């Protein structure tokens, strides 16, 4: 299945992409998708803190990702 993945801030620099569509196995969890992406990008693999949001909300890492979900990866936030 295909999922839409966005990258923000330093992660956009590390991947060289704002977003991409990834082919992943059905039933993959948020944590599984994060590992998949760390496998694609060395610089991401070296990061301790990789935050994930699904459809604009923080979700538990064991959440199953569905076809068509919008998943975002980003470093700890620094607004305010």
């Amino acid at each position, binding site marked *: 299945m295909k999922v839409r993945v966005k990258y923000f801030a330093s992660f956009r620099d590390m991947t060289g992409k704002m977003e991409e569509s990834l082919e992943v196995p059905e039933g993959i969890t948020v944590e599984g998708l994060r590992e998949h992406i760390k496998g694609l990008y060395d610089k991401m693999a070296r990061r301790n803190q990789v935050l994930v949001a699904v459809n*604009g909300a923080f979700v538990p890492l064991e959440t199953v990702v569905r076809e068509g979900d919008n998943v975002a990866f*980003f470093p700890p936030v620094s*607004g305010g």
Partner: protein
Amino acid sequence: MIRVQREDVDIDAVLEAVKSDKSGCVVSFLGTVRDTSEGRSVQRMSIEVYEEMAVKQLSMIREEALERFGVNEVVVVHRYGDLEVGDSIVYIGVSAGHREEAFQACKYVIDELKERVPLWKKEYTGDGEVWVEGDRRE
């Protein structure tokens, strides 16, 4: 009122939006661009946002503050894009019957914003460009 915008904050207009006759005060917080960061001089800043999520997160924080502290109104305006030293970054306004709950709610909103609203600062310093990253853990 929750706004994520490129334009400067119209503080007078936001104050009008947060004030109410049933409130005895407005407590506000204005975050601005500082000219130093961790020993480096900062020349300017840019802020990136995941806008759709930022608006959702700010709306949740606003609801939590209204409920938890019993205040009358909470407004948040956060800017993104290119900013100069001294520019406004974020304005939070809270109106309430009394000051105690207004101060508490205002502090709650800025503390939560810094933990869970997807915004990132990039500082342009004498040593080059630096992404600022918070310390939220999973």
